[in-house]
């Protein structure tokens, strides 16, 4: 009985007793969730346009952030470094299309997936070769990223809102909004959707697959750069960030591999879910459940909706 009480009653009693901590946990979860969503978006963009699950998205987050910080450390002004980092992601997109995707056209998806594995290890090696393995501090002041904390007395306690977290949430939301507009309102966006629906049909109406792939990898690169800046500003830029990026996997399972709203909602559910789980139920098993809880949540969803919350329903002719 005691264990049932601890699992089903006590956490909720504690939530009621300390609503300030509940609010703080929800806020931390939301911020993490937005950042997970941002990383997941990079995966979704590429998957939608090419059907490739880009395993390299995590290292692209690290690589782009390292370029930015590395250039700044060499004396390049922050905004110029930012523009050059964006340029580097464009170069990467072109290189990936020419060297990886084009030669592998018409190969099975698993081959393309394995190619992104190769790309991951190539970028890790290249990043370490150029920038070394030391963690670096993200530029914040010169990029006008706010620092400091606002403490609000709420529900009988103190709730802390980091300005950087607020900025992360706002910037990520703007980014997501822009992508949504880009996909639905622009000509290129419509072309991307056409490619996502059917490569052959898109080709037949004169859409260049190669061009679309470059655009989509470039867009994923920019998303990676923004994610790298925000995560990096929170906890430093190091190669362990690429592991955090794998948290996007349960987000994708949950939201569906092809849905932008799915990535957003999935990110928020995973972010909030893992923080609540760790905070209220983690102590029951000695803590540290955050690492796997996200996958459990995603698996539970999979049981009921294999295509994810917003994924396209899988219908196959037998």
């Amino acid at each position, binding site marked *: 009985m005691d264990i049932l009480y601890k699992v089903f009653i006590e956490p909720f009693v504690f939530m009621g007793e*300390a609503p300030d*901590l509940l609010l703080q946990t929800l806020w931390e979860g939301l911020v993490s969730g937005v950042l997970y969503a941002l990383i997941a978006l990079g995966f979704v963009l590429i998957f939608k346009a090419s059907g490739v699950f880009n395993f390299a998205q995590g290292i692209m987050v690290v690589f782009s952030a390292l370029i930015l910080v590395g250039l700044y450390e060499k004396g390049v002004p922050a905004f110029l470094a930012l523009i050059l980092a964006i340029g580097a992601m464009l170069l990467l997109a072109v290189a990936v299309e020419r060297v990886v995707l084009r030669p592998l056209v018409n190969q099975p998806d698993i081959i393309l997936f394995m190619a992104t594995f190769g790309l991951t290890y190539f970028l890790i090696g290249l990043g370490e070769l150029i920038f070394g393995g030391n963690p670096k501090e993200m530029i914040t002041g010169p990029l006008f990223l706010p620092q400091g904390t606002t403490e609000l007395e709420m529900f009988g306690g103190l709730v802390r809102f980091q300005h950087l977290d607020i900025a992360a949430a706002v910037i990520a939301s703007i980014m997501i909004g822009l992508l949504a507009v880009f996909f639905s309102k622009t000509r290129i966006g419509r072309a991307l959707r056409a490619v996502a629906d059917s490569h052959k049909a898109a080709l037949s109406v004169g859409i260049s697959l190669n061009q679309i792939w470059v655009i989509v990898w470039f867009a994923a690169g920019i998303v990676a750069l923004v994610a790298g800046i925000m995560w990096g500003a929170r906890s430093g830029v190091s190669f362990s960030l690429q592991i955090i990026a794998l948290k996007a996997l349960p987000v994708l399972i949950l939201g569906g591999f092809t849905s932008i709203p799915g990535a957003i909602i999935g990110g928020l559910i995973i972010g909030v879910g893992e923080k609540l789980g760790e905070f209220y139920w983690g102590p029951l098993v000695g*803590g540290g459940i955050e690492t796997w809880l996200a996958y459990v949540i995603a698996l539970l969803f999979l049981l009921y909706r294999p295509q994810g919350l917003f994924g396209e329903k899988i219908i196959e002719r037998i």
Partner: protein
Amino acid sequence: MSFRKLSLGLAVATMIGGTVLPAAAQDSIYVPLFTYRTGPFAGSGTHIADGMHDYLEMLNQRDGGIGGVKLVLEECETGYDTKKGVECYESVKGKNPVIVNPWSTGITLPLIPRASVDKIPILSMAYGLSASARGDIFPWVFNPPATYWDGLSMIVKYIGEKEGGLDKLKGKKIGFLHLDASFGKEPIPLLQELSKELGFEVALYPVAAQDMQNQSSQWLSARRDRPDYMIMWGWGSMNGAAVKEAVRSGYPMDKFYSVWWPGEDDARAGGAGAKGFKMLNWHAVGTNFPALQDIQKHVVDKGLSKAQKDKVGELLYNRGVYNSLLIAEGIATAQKLTGKKAVTGEDVRRGMENIKLDPARLKELGLEGFTDQLVLSCSDHNGHRPAFMQEWDGTKWVKISNPIEPMTDRVKSQLDAAAKDYAEKNAGWPKRTEACDKAS
């Protein structure tokens, strides 16, 4: 490819490989250095690797090696990955290494049973299995100058003194933020014993390797539990992220302690808010020692070092120097004991047991005042030396305490029991047959 061509290729490869095997020569001593300059732990591993390499290279450049025998140094990148570390061990063991430094508790553990079989001593400097301090049970393993259990007892003792006595810890809560791996879990049994004995409560905050840079949950939990003190057992990017998160969450930094692994970069990560963060240490920082200046002159200035110039003399760099000081002293002592120049792993094991780094010897080595003395013996492979507390003042570490002796009375019985337990659980654990030198 025909069988003939394949055989020919293999024969040529073997011949080429044979000629480049560095340790085959009789006029050299092969010292592999297990390092990690890549991966999530590179932020710590790189500086240690540089310090280790540069001290030994300085001996090569300045003195022609040790006792006139050149040291052949070879790095093997482990990425702090146990599997890769064991692969490194397997790849170097055929080259007659005189000692192996795993630089990871996770890698050390599977190597411990192999050491006595392969006759290669293991130096796990202030990390690894605490119980391996017992030379009578672990004749091939050395973990000076203090075990993790010693370190934990020093922190608890220091906190107790701050509170006005160990008895004042009763009713307090101590948080333990640790890497969720062999290394981070190593001191937990002692912490739990001390908590029972001294009456303080323990709250554990494990950090998975994949979440090292995503610690908001742990610090939220700390806000819920309100630990009076927080002790950290972290490595790699976990340390810097923890300092940042502690500042972010408003945890009082003067109550935040760490074992001896954070470096300057980790403290800097917290910005001005990191002031007051404390950690144990047992050696100096800076380059104001003849041996360090020789490193500058003979290695760094000649472009033989991979270290960034401004990192030479920083805490983790000097930690690597200390590690290599022990290696070099083990080799030099082995040469004295055996009368041989090109010593073997078995000789160096004897050398390590006879290390006597007293102030006179440290002065002779150009490291006067760099660290406390260390004397190892046949039965004591650790030394259980005191460490001091240092505090981050916003720009540098400042020593704030006298040497803190470990709580030997409390640790020794635990350590003996753990060593005995290890030998019993590992069926067929060999009884020590290696003779003890008179000096040790």
